């Protein structure tokens, strides 16, 4: 009740109201220490990706045949790899690809999954059966196997990595959205929309989806973490970006052959991947905790 009283005074004009609402949502993050830690790491990597040309000491593709598999030195702060390339520069540029590909592929799988989940959950019946059984059959495959099959079929490239992650991730999103839809569609405001003769797609996207956004956003955060992992895995298996593009997974895969002579070559990209994945998980957990606390 006090919330209503204090906000009513400030809520003037739609733009101010909307902005304030967004800020209210964002400020929730700062209540959770865990989420803040995650956010700091994520922001660090985003800054690194944006500033890559400024902060990287070398060209990530430049080979120095005089310095192969070197330990850290003042010239190469994190050492060099088997072709004499600067690991630090490759990590910095590698963050660009991964921070671009992961959100894009998650966005695609969330888009596809949300659509299918809304479809099955809202219409129910035969549509639901058909959609969900197809998605179930996709989920029945082990994810790695599915990645291998898809990439083997369409070839490794940035676009195909996105396609593969979308294909593998969409069924999970669809299940989540379907269960949310099943709940939300029983509410009276959906009845009200129906008695207004609204188009089913209007009801799905404007009446149901906005009320499912919280869990979908939190799930997406976790999914970006998984996607980074998957992109790393694909890179490690040689199914990610074609060389010589700097790619964290690919870097681990190459450095692995020289693990005895240059163990740090494996460590750095592995640390990069895990720091980002852990940060995203912390962020999502903190967000979920704080958002459910006030329900």
């Amino acid at each position: 009740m006090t919330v209503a009283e204090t906000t009513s005074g400030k809520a003037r004009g739609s733009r101010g109201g909307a902005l304030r609402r967004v800020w209210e949502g964002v400020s929730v993050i700062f209540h959770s220490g865990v989420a803040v830690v995650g956010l700091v790491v994520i922001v660090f990597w985003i800054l690194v990706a944006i500033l890559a040309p400024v902060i990287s000491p070398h060209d990530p593709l430049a080979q120095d045949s005089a310095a192969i598999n070197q330990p850290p030195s003042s010239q190469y702060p994190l050492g060099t790899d088997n072709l004499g390339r600067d690991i630090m520069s490759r990590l910095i540029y590698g963050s660009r690809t991964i921070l671009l590909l992961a959100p894009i592929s998650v966005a695609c799988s969330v888009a596809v999954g949300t659509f299918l989940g809304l479809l099955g959950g809202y219409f129910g019946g035969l549509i639901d059966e058909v959609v969900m059984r197809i998605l179930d059959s996709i989920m029945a495959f082990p994810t790695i196997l599915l990645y291998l099959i898809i990439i083997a079929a369409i070839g490794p490239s940035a676009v195909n990595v996105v396609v593969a992650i979308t294909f593998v991730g969409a069924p999970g999103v669809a299940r989540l959205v379907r269960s949310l839809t099943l709940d939300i569609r029983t509410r009276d405001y959906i009845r009200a929309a129906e008695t207004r003769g609204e188009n089913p797609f209007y009801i799905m996207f404007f009446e149901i989806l906005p009320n499912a956004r919280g869990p979908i956003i939190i799930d997406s955060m976790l999914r970006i973490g998984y996607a980074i992992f998957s992109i790393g895995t694909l890179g490690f298996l040689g199914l990610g970006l074609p060389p010589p593009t700097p790619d964290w997974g690919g870097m681990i895969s190459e450095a692995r052959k020289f693990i005895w002579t240059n163990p740090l070559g494996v460590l750095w990209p592995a640390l990069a991947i895990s720091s980002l994945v852990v940060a995203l998980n912390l962020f999502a957990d903190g967000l979920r905790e704080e958002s459910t606390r006030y329900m």
Partner: protein
Amino acid sequence: MQQPRDIPVLNVENLAVSYETRRGDVEAVRDVSFAIQRGEAHGIVGESGCGKSTVAFSVVNFLGRNGKIVDGRILFQGRDLVGRSQEELRTLRGDRIAMVYQDPMQALNPSMRVGDQLSEVLVIHRGMDQDEAEDMCIHMLEQVHMPDPANVMRRFPHQLSGGQQQRVVIAMALLNDPALLIMDEPTTALDVTVEAAVLDLIAELQTKFDTAIMYISHNLGVVARVSDRVGVMYAGTMVERATVKDVYLRPSHPYTLGLMRCVPKLGMDKTSSYLYPIRGRVPSPTNLPPGCIYEPRCDFARPVCSQKLPEMREVEPGHWARCHFAEDVLAGKLTSADTDVPDLEGLEKLRAGAEPVLSVEHAKTYYPVPSKRLVGGQKQYVKAVDNVSIEMRKGATVGIVGESGCGKSTLVKTIIGLETPTDGELEFMGVDISTPVSARDLDLIKNLQMVFQNPDSTLNPSFSVGAQIGRPIRRFKTVPGAQVRAEVLRLLDMMRLGENYYERLPRQLSGGEKQRVGIARAIAGRPELVLCDEPVSALDVSVQAAVLNLLLEVQQEMGTTMAFIAHDLSVVRFFCDTIAVMYLGQIVEFGPAEAIYAPPYHPYTEALLSAVPIPDPAAEQQHIRLSGSVPSALNPPRGCRFHTRCPRRNLLPDGGNICETEVPPWRFDTDDHRIFCHIPLEELRKMAPVVTTEEGGHAG
């Protein structure tokens, strides 16, 4: 443990309870005092959030981790319970205080048989052996009038009906022969006919067991029926305390007076009387007014009221009130300016000689039930609406009443197109409406709108009030695009909501406000017919009156036809011109409101009326109780569907055998009033009126 009669079983003195929250301590209850003697039932009545349950929880020390008693004493059989350790409390209280909650399903363990749960109480507390305990449990189930108790002992809770479950809970509470029985809204979740039977039981137990009962309810009628004395609570404190008769007939606090004036008495109707809502809303405990807590909403407030908090004082022997001017209120000396009374002349005119808007003939809505066998098997149907005929005239209000599961909502959903009828003819303004809403054209859709029951789910939490009211206006193009905002503001104003509500989100509104926005949304397209599915049953009484008044105004201003589902027969009587009584998917009586509430009655209508809790201790009510619960609509009884529970079958020769075999005929009392019964009208006319009030004869 025999106690002398003069020591009250429970004596609460100046109790204050506060809860710790993030924003500091919140005093939920302040300065509450009352006493309960042996064999006495003390009602505590008040709107939601006024601290009724907190008082009950502090007696049983159930305040949770963040609640604590900050002041006052709670004397149980003369000994103070406040400030004792759990261990001391256990020995002091022993098993002498029992509590019954609102939802029986949550009080019973779903995975244990009823018999095991009951006998466990005796085995653990009394150290009885199993056989002895079971015998005593069966005896106790007999005491609460449970049919076939030995059989019930072997069942699981989900195999019992709601009323039976509550009887089990009450039996369990009584097993230890408690000195004090606390009941927190024990009948709120039950149907009115079941509720009446449980209330009878409570009254009977009170005398039979000589137990002190603390009865909490928001329903004035229910409290009037079971209590000897009543305390009225408002915003965490008690504002009036006296015998039932004094509180209901001679209230001496403006809030009590306000409550009495905002509930329709059975027999009142909209053309002759008016409901006076209490303005404003209950203040939040963090933001209490400095003087009298009721001052901001009080019609009689004077300058002193906003400065000085009145003490609870004895206005006359045994009649306590917390008001500076209690004597004046009691003497009826104070009058308020009733500026809000709408002019109701227009309504009368509209009703007379209006053309039919909707006609439903022999409508059937069946839901298929999947057969339990894998292959083949006969397909079964839940006959939610079975052969219903109903007509609505322009500008009239048709009430639909009946117990839950009788098909009221399905009928309304069929009319609006959310369900497709299996059979029958439905016509709305000359257009066939036996089609689902998706197959209807926009004009038809515009003219049929609905108001929903649950204020918490009627509005989409993601959109502002303005956007949600604006949507139907845009969609039905009621006004040109540029004027939509002005039209929304006009509707908000009509609902007594200011311009500042335009940008608010539903979570910033109270229940009554949400419901008003829901009404504004329904009438935004200027529909011909508005279907209201229990629009006020989830609201507090003071808010309920305001919403009913708004609906009346809408009807008057726009000439809207309304269908009004409700389970509160007093509200239906007040609000509706024509009433349809439904039982198990069929209409059993249909006619003008005044004819429904006077003989001749359908036996089911008679039973319903006799079950209504009336907030008037002076009213005389016939005692007719239905046995059993509503049969399954999957396999409705043959012949007359009501024959399994009908208390009037014996009016027919050979005990009404015909009722079991033949579908009853429609008997026409007048052209407008019809009754679906085998009993001839002459016999039905001989019935006595169910409710008689002191002033106005029977409630017709």
